[in-house]
């Protein structure tokens, strides 16, 4: 297998997640090369060939041009696999590259087994093994699934890539920074998070009370934030904050991959959920099968009592 790893540059810098692709290439076996649309400051610490196109010329985000550059690098390298991180950059570009290469695409790969790709299905409740019927294949790799790569080191052999520049059809106007964090979940020792399973906004105080009783901060899953029950500063997950508390209590959270990505570094995880099969059970140390709306207030009362009496 000759794999081309598509690295990502944002704000002039290499995105750290790009390094996860090296672990994927390792798992797959065979040769690897890299391609990057970026500048000097984004060149990875890694050996082997790097096809480099200048972001000053093609933009940091111009999907049509970037796809052409990646296809050009794949042609020159004779790659039979092109791998992206399953990120806002990767899932946007991968189908365009697959389409141009006549390749099958397998999205959000979390494992490689005997040359077949393992992916999740139905919110992580199921797994699939995928087989491809084409000569070449395009992959997006699930964030956090391949981490076993050693500390990055080395410097690449740079090969410049140029294509005929065209005016972008999707024009990047600029970036909007994340809202200022009013809640710092990242350094909290205890995080108690609310998920959609709490049923309605009016039940948020039940979870907030438990957080208070346990001396922790209040977190939330994405659906709770999207529904406007809590603001974004409480969101735990790949598009929110990444937390590493000693204790994480997930209340009514099913455990979508994006949420797990934000909390699986927690030392001890308690999940309270009425669905025994919910994927949160995969990462939990304790799973209490119960209705959160009934269970949580009772738990809060007991913990308050304990705090008073010791």
């Amino acid at each position, binding site marked *: 297998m000759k794999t081309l790893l598509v690295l990502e540059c944002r704000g002039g810098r290499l*995105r750290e*997640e790009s390094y996860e692709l090296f672990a994927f290439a390792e798992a797959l076996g065979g040769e690897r090369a890299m391609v990057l649309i970026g500048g000097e400051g984004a060149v990875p610490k890694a050996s082997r060939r790097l096809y480099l196109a200048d972001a000053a010329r093609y933009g940091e*985000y111009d999907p*049509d041009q970037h796809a052409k550059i990646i296809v050009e690098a794949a042609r020159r390298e004779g790659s039979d696999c092109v791998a992206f991180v399953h990120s*806002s950059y990767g*899932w*946007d570009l991968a*189908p365009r590259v*697959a*389409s141009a290469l006549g390749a099958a*695409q397998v*999205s*959000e790969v979390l494992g490689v087994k005997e040359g*077949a790709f393992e992916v*999740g*299905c*139905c919110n992580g*409740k*199921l*797994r*699939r093994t*995928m*087989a*491809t*019927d084409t000569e070449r294949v395009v992959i997006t790799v699930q964030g956090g699934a391949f981490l076993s790569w050693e500390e990055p080191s080395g410097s690449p052999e740079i090969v410049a890539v140029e294509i005929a520049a065209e005016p972008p*059809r*999707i*024009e*990047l*106007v*600029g*970036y*909007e920074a*994340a*809202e200022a964090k009013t809640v710092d979940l990242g350094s909290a*020792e205890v995080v108690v998070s609310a998920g959609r399973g709490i049923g309605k906004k009016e039940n948020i105080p039940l979870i907030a009370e438990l957080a208070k009783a*346990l001396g922790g901060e209040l977190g939330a899953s994405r659906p709770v934030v999207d529904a406007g029950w809590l603001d*974004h500063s409480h969101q735990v997950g790949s*598009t929110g904050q990444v937390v590493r508390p*000693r204790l994480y209590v997930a209340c009514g959270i*099913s455990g979508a991959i994006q949420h797990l990505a934000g909390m699986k570094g927690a030392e*001890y995880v*308690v*999940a309270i959920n009425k669905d*025994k*099969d919910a994927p949160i*059970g*995969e990462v939990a*140390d*304790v*799973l*209490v*099968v119960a209705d959160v709306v*009934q*269970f949580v207030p*009772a*738990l809060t009362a*007991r*913990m308050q009592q*304990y705090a008073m009496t010791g």
Partner: protein
Amino acid sequence: MKILVCIKQVPDMECRFRVNGAGTWYEEGDLAFRINEYDEYAVEQAVRLKEQLGGEPEVTVLSIGPDRVQESIRKTLAMGGDQGVHIRDEAAATKDPWQIAALIASYARGKGFDLVLTGMQSQDRGSAQVGVLVAEMLGYPCATTLVGFSYDDGVVTARRELEGGTKAVVRFRLPAVATCQLGLNVPRYPTLPNIMKAKRKEIEAIAVSSLADEPRRAGTRLLYLPQKRGSARVIEGEMSSQLEELVEILKTKCASTR
């Protein structure tokens, strides 16, 4: 203006899944089906644009699958879609994103759609491919993962969600394809009068055999339940005994954080 919204009907993710006898897909009999959540945002965005432009745009909602998908199409017509298109395909679940996109493109080609909206991914397979592939096949530009959308005089200014709460502001001209991320808007609940009105709206049924038939590129070899790590201690039973057990655990955990 002509808007096409592509929706998928998916199982309710709260359902309990069972793998079929062949080990290649899930048993559909026990499941409840609903509109893919991401696609609801696409429907809402189409209806909002129609409202913004004084009702001029015509909103067509398309879905591929067995007869049960008509129920989902009907719901989007109650949200404000004008007409439905049902591509009848009993084998839709066995098709890969490339084949599904080819069916949509084959239907849409030459019909002059100015804007194609769909979810950025489906809740069941989550491949995030179909919208982009439809754009590639139609030769349209495509913006993905939108959490903001405004339209003015042929130009869309949109916000793409990136990682860590950062957004990218992008601009593109119609015709185009746009894929919707959760939180783009707040999808409306159909009102009773609109549900009644939707019953009289047309859903055109099209045989899948009349559209492009592309060969499959990737297929599911096996479907299975993930191996439980088995480390989770499951606490079931009476609430009082559940509480006893959990409180004891939390006492030690909280003591260690003090």
